[in-house]
């Protein structure tokens, strides 16, 4: 059996093999997994593969690829098989990484402090002054216990002789630890017994250390420190991870516009006022953090943040300016600096790297260009690595000229032949394939020194280029299992991994931006629901081609579709009546085509976008539900869906939206955020129901022939009606149910009384909140006379419906002005 498994897997070669120590012979710490694979029936492995894919897909684990025209949302690539590291090997890696983090922190503290390394000539000035990451305003900022580097990551590679090398250091805002955590969650589930029996070390302790250390160094007196996770926003490549880590660590996820600096302190803008922030764990690049003192073109930053740090009122992790260490040019100086600063030998070497700013190095590099990879010395140069062996004569000449003109901008690195590990082949699920791998490991500062995460993010090359490890360029990832000889700690920070978790965390640090998004979440969810129901009714009636339908209420339905702009409102049906075929096409487009501005797909996209911003507040279940719907919509939008399929997609949309609505009723704490979400929902429903009824009345024929089933369907009240009247719908009872019946959650009265109630509750916190503006309309609703007004042809009801629509519109504007308007963008200005 092993032979079959390894049929496509090279037994010997120039690479170090992570799994095999000899042909067909796994290394001791891989034996359990190997035996498991050999013994597993094909069906079970297929299930395992599917389970991983499903979890990635349903949990919405994504990675944004900048080059992708689709932009956001590429599923994270995760291989089933973990990389396994033995306890003995790990202890060496751990010590080396902790030492390196300590060293880099010392260098950072010196460069942003006394600069003795520069003065003594141990670091060339070009490495500092030529690096755009050297932030001059950050010099001299206080750092408690001289810790500037709170989180550090190193990219490691293993050469054919089995030794590990550091390829690059990540000191700005290292990414991937959250993905490592998510990988762990998925993979430990598919191999639960192996995971337990192999005593794989858990990751949670590492994150607890991070959380405790940040709290330890937070500048605070008595109050519990508030730590926020600062993200550049949903368009960042690793936004998923920001949201995931924020939820995992229990930190509010904030964008720059959520924070403000006042009197030298940082504050979170919440609905109830400003909340002092003590620690900013940043995933935003440091130069973008403060448009006042750092990059002035940053729209993402917090003006005054640097000065708040200068006054010691906020801890920024990593410290502003830490990007400076992300330079290949530094690598060659590390062994000497380690001896000088720590009095120790550097435990793990960097890949041989030459900085061309040294004239002797430049000449050597040019001589050996074929064997080297040329990289930018500074990240600001944004140059993709060039492999000397790939260059033709002309490219080579150009590169050499460029290097001679600005030698200090270049470094050259020895090519490491990466080690290989098995990945599971999707095409042939009984065969392992080899792929090059690299390992990203993480350390965090603690009062007792650097702590290394026992695991990491294993990055897997694409099949096309075994030299490059990049998620941006089609690579994949693996869970990393560090085995232990001792019992492992099973502490977990996740309160409940998956469950009907609250959409909004209670607590006062709800930012105004989040509340605004919740308001719109409510509105869009309701709007999608109304749109989907109307489209379903319209398409059903179109299929059901009996003349009576066309004659009776059909004009009302079509007119409502126009009023909702599902059909082009500019086209006058009297002059230019659409035939059934074009009508059907238009309605299907309004369902599936995102370019129809008010169609279902477009509104779902808006809902999804808002949900995306609320990502860390949505439970996994909700996210899955919505995500699945979006994927289905996208699949149908590619075309070729029959009318039946479109209708069943509409059914599923309605069900999903009901599920989301049920969750807001049943799964959310009743805090301010919930109240705004509910206000959004009620406002939207009020507007939508008023519109529906006014169109229905406008086209009504006051005959016994009126067929009002459609109206009850659009209003989701058909069951109630039937249970009460057991007869064909007629105007009086229908209008009573949809307008006046307080017990019907779709009725106008239900909406407006609910709104009134919420506004009164809001005014307890914020003072008068427009509740009184509802009173006259409530009174007019109350005064409606069943006999006179609840029929087509009257004047009172249509006028009231028009006023209700106007009210909903105005109220929405006024609430936005009052509560969300300060969520505006900063603007920059200079004088010349």
């Amino acid at each position: 059996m092993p032979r079959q498994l390894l049929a496509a897997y090279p037994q010997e070669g120039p690479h170090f093999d992570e799994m095999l120590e000899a042909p067909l012979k796994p290394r001791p710490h891989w034996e359990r997994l190997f035996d498991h694979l050999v013994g597993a029936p094909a069906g079970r492995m297929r299930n395992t593969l599917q389970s991983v894919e499903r979890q990635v897909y349903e949990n919405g684990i994504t990675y944004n690829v900048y080059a992708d025209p689709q932009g956001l949302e590429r599923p994270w690539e995760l291989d089933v098989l973990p990389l396994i590291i033995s306890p003995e090997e790990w202890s060496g890696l751990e010590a080396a990484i902790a030492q390196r983090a300590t060293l880099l922190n010392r260098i950072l503290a010196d460069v942003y402090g006394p600069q003795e390394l520069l003065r003594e000539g141990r670091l060339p000035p070009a490495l500092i002054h030529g690096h755009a990451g050297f932030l001059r305003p950050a010099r001299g900022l206080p750092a408690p216990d001289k810790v500037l580097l709170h989180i550090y990551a190193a990219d490691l590679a293993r050469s054919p002789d089995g030794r590990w090398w550091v390829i690059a250091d990540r000191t700005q805002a290292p990414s991937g630890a959250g993905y490592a955590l998510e990988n762990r969650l998925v993979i430990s589930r598919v191999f639960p017994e192996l995971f337990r029996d192999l005593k794989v070390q858990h990751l949670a302790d590492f994150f607890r250390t991070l959380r405790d250390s940040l709290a330890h160094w937070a500048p605070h007196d008595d109050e519990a420190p508030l730590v926020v996770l600062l993200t550049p926003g949903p368009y960042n490549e690793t936004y998923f991870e920001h949201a995931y880590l924020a939820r995992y660590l229990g930190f509010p996820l904030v964008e720059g516009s959520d924070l403000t600096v006042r009197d030298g302190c940082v504050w979170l803008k919440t609905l109830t006022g400003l909340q002092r922030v003590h620690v900013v764990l940043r995933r935003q690049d440091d130069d973008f953090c403060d448009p006042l003192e750092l990059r002035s073109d940053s729209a993402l930053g917090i003006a005054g943040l640097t000065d708040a740090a200068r006054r010691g009122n906020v801890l920024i992790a990593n410290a502003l300016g830490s990007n400076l260490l992300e330079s290949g040019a530094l690598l060659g100086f590390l062994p000497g600096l380690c001896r000088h600063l720590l009095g120790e030998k550097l435990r793990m070497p960097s890949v041989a790297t030459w900085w061309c700013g040294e004239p002797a190095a430049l000449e050597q590099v040019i001589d050996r260009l074929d064997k080297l990879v040329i990289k930018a010395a500074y990240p600001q140069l944004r140059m993709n690595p060039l492999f000397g062996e790939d260059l033709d004569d002309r490219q080579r000449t150009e590169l050499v000229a460029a290097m001679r003109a600005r030698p200090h901008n270049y470094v050259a690195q020895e090519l490491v032949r990466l080690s290989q590990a098995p990945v599971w082949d999707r095409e042939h699920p009984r065969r392992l394939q080899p792929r090059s791998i690299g390992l990203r490991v993480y350390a965090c500062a603690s009062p007792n020194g650097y702590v290394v995460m026992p695991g990491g993010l294993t990055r897997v090359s694409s099949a096309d280029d075994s030299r490059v490890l990049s998620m941006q360029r089609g690579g994949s990832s693996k869970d990393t299992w560090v085995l232990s000889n001792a019992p492992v700690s099973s502490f977990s920070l996740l309160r409940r991994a998956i469950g009907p978790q609250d959409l909004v965390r209670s607590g006062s640090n709800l930012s105004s931006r989040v509340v605004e998004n919740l308001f719109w979440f409510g509105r869009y969810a309701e709007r999608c629901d109304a749109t989907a129901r109307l489209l379903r009714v319209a398409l059903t009636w179109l299929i059901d081609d009996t003349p009576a339908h066309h004659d009776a209420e059909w004009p009302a339905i079509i007119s409502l579709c126009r009023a909702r702009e599902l059909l082009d409102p500019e086209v006058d049906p009297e002059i230019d009546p659409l035939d059934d075929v074009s009508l059907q096409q238009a309605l299907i487009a309004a369902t599936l085509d995102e370019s129809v501005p008010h169609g279902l797909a477009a509104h779902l996209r808006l809902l999804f976008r808002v949900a995306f911003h609320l990502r860390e507040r949505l439970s996994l279940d909700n996210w899955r539900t919505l995500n699945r719907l979006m994927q289905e919509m996208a699949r149908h939008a590619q075309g070729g869906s029959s009318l039946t399929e479109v209708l069943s997609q509409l059914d599923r949309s309605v069900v999903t939206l009901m599920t989301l609505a049920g969750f807001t009723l049943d799964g959310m704490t009743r805090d301010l955020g919930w109240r705004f979400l509910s206000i959004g929902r009620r406002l939207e429903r009020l507007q939508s129901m008023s519109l529906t009824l006014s169109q229905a009345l406008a086209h009504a024929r006051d005959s016994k022939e009126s067929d009002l089933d459609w109206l009850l369907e659009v209003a989701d009240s058909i069951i109630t009606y039937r249970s009460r009247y057991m007869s064909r719908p007629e105007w009086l009872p229908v209008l009573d149910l949809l307008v006046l019946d307080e017990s019907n959650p779709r009725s106008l009265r239900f909406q407006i009384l609910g709104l009134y109630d919420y506004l009164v509750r809001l005014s307890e916190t914020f003072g008068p909140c427009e509740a009184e503006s509802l009173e006259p309309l409530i009174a007019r609703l109350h005064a409606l006379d069943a006999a006179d007004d609840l029929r087509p042809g009257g004047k009172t009801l249509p006028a009231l419906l028009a006023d209700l629509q106007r009210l909903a519109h105005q109220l929405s504007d006024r609430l936005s002005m009052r509560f969300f308007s300060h969520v505006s963008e900063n603007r920059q200005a200079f004088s010349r």
Partner: protein
Amino acid sequence: MKKLSYRVEHVTLYEYKTPVTLSQQLLHLTPRSLPWQQCETHALAIEPKAAEYVEREDFFGNRIVQFAVRTAHEKLRVSADSTIHLRARWDELDVKSSPRWEGVRDRLRDVTQPPLLDPSQYLFESPNVELAPALTDYAIRSFPAGRPLLAGAMDLMQRIYQDFDYDPAATTVATPLAEVIADRRGVCQDFAHLMIGCLRALGLSARYVSGYILTEPPPGQPRLVGADASHAWVSVFCPRTGWVDFDPTNKLLPDLEHISVAWGRDFSDVTPMRGVILGGGGEQELDVSVTVTPLDEQDIAPANKPGAALPGQ
């Protein structure tokens, strides 16, 4: 030794279409104290009143002020009023006896000797000075093999003065250097960046100086308030001599008519006033007026229209 005294009034006025609710600003308006320059008095007035106000020194040793206005306002006025005494900078400056430029370049990039810490800050690209190949091509003609550094810088300054047109309409704060080179026009800030770029492209150290220059009214006419503007020039590092200033806009070596406020790698390090505002939708209007008055002058006529920011020619 000759000594001159000046009063400098620098008024910046922003007008906004809608109220600004929060304004945070960073000012580089306090003249430096230097061996040849004494800042006797310096007063800063901010309207409306600043809710927060901090003074400190920046990375380059310039005095800066950071303030915040929190009351809603449609106008923001910042005026800096300074009294400055200048004395001649050089007893004697012989540009021909300065060291050969290649030697200076090699010394600056030599990593085997103890580094020249101060000048090595100003050798590299900076936000406003991108080192395009065109800069090297333009610069090298002023630096044939063996030419003394300062003689080369002098020649470069003169060529920039000749080859480039002074044209306030041609550029803005955001115009990149490459465009200035291509179009051959700009203002003092562009010429300073250009000359700095040329020098850095050759491996020499050059920094940006912002300040003021005395302008003479046309003969027989009184001095106009606000007729002047902020000015900018270049400082070149020369071993033994130290930093030597060059003004490519006026083709002269700054001395008794140039008042230095701040220096840095380029404009972005020493922007007189830079800030972030909340609100103030639509276009904002900016009016800067600078008046440099020799202190022995008595008659100062008010300008008909203050604030037409004329160049420091």
